[in-house]
């Protein structure tokens, strides 16, 4: 399998606070990697740094072999990186359809994802296409946010806490829509608080603690206890590669 994304010794700060410390990992083409970890472990900052929304303090980000560390976010979208940000961050006064169209027209790559394809993948959005994004429910907003990212026809999809603030039944629906996407060979890096769901969805899991990756492996080779320990930092586990 070829490597699509490689992160090398990445450092990211918020002022004096170092959120991401010397993080290195790779994501192969068609692989799903789940990042788990407690609040404040640096997962969101890591994702935003890969997407170009946050400037790293050190290290490199390689996409498809090219160094993209200094590229602005909109150029990375053009290369095929799309982030579904935490909290969805839709454009509230644009309609669902406008939210989708603005992303595809702005510099997305040509590909299979169109407004119709997104509405087919998320049927709940079809009757809402002319509604303002602000008037949607949380689940509908999340579906729109994922659809908006897909409209750029990404090669790598970054999903930040898609289940945050949603009712369990809604989360189930969002993941059902995602599963067909994942089975279709998409490359996904997802941040998920729900450990069970992360272990079920991903090919590989990486656990972050205080800005570092402390545990990494396939769901098959990791025990729940190992992950829980790494998650809360009960006992410092050495990273297993």
């Amino acid at each position, binding site marked *: 399998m070829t490597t699509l994304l490689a992160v090398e010794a990445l450092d990211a700060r918020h002022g004096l606070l170092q959120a991401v410390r010397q993080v290195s990992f790779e994501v192969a083409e068609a692989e799903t990697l789940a990042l788990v970890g407690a609040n404040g472990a640096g997962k969101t900052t890591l994702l935003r740094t890969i*997407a*170009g*929304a946050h400037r790293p303090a050190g290290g490199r980000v390689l996409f498809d072999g090219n160094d993209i560390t200094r590229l*602005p*976010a*909109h150029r990375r*979208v*053009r290369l095929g990186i*799309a*982030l579904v*940000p935490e909290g969805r*961050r839709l*454009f*509230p*006064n*644009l309609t669902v359809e*406008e*939210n989708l*169209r*603005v*992303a595809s*027209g*702005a*510099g*997305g790559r040509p590909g299979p994802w169109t407004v119709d394809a997104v509405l087919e993948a998320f049927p709940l959005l079809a009757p809402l296409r002319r509604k303002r994004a602000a008037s949607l429910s949380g689940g509908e907003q999340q579906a729109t946010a994922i659809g*908006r*990212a897909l*409209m*750029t026809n990404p090669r790598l999809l970054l999903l930040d806490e898609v289940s945050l603030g949603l009712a369990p039944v809604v989360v189930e629906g969002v993941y059902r829509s995602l599963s067909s996407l994942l089975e279709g060979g998409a490359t996904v890096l997802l941040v998920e608080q729900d450990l069970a769901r992360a272990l079920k969805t991903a090919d590989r899991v990486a656990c972050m603690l205080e800005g570092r990756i402390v545990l990494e492996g396939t769901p098959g080779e990791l025990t729940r206890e190992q992950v829980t320990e790494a998650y809360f930092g009960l006992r410092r586990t050495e990273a297993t590669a």
Partner: protein
Amino acid sequence: MTWVSAIVHGILLGGVYALLASGLALMFGVMRIINLAHGSLALVGAYMAFLLTEHLHITTYLALAPVLPGALVAGYFLQRTMLERSLRAGQLVPLLTTFGLLIVIANLLQYFFSPDVHSLDEGRIGTAAWNVSSSLSIPWFDVLTFGVAVFVLGGLELVLRHTQLGRELRATAEDADTAELVGINARAVYARAAAIAVATAALAGVFYGMRSSFDPNAGADQLLYAFEAVVIGGIGSLWGTLWGGVVLGVAQLVGAQINPEYFALSGHVVFLVVLVARTGVQARGLTLTLRRAT
């Protein structure tokens, strides 16, 4: 002038204010920049048209053909070179930058064109009027100006609603960081918005110059009226800007009908009343929420 005549002319005068205010509203709506140099940029447009008509002996309308594209380019580079840097330093800095620009432009115009008044020729339409009755006569030029204002505001509204550039402008206005994440080059979008805003300013300046004479310091006065039109109409709404201009124009001419000295004063009074009423409603809303909370 009768009362009817004052109201009709007030509505038409509103078109002049709305035309100048449209670019002001656009820049504030997209970038949150209050461009204090907007009126001065309009004046530059008028002076450029004056140069072209004087030296090339073309009509003022034909002079718009080079002036408007020039203004687009000027607006683009103004954003890229000055305003973008100012924005990075916080929301108040562009206010200072554009205030400085206002003074620089006034002085440059004075240096190159002298403090004397100039005017632009409005062609044959300037003297034509529609005599409705013995007391009401509607000059065609005023109708033309109003039509141009409606056309510009309507055109902007259409662009914002139905084109990719419009969607990008609105998305960037709402959340510039997220706009970047969906592939929008926010800096380029800002520069395009500034280009359009400065072009509408130049258009407004040329029409203002045909309507009345102007001198290097006329920019500030015109800016004040345009600003009042934006606030009366409700900030961020383009059609609201047209209504704001009309309300202001009617207020000024009805005031002048009572006493010619009240022209500017009555406009300011209406502006203040709207401002106080708005903040009053907000304050009452706040007290209600507070009362409910306790």
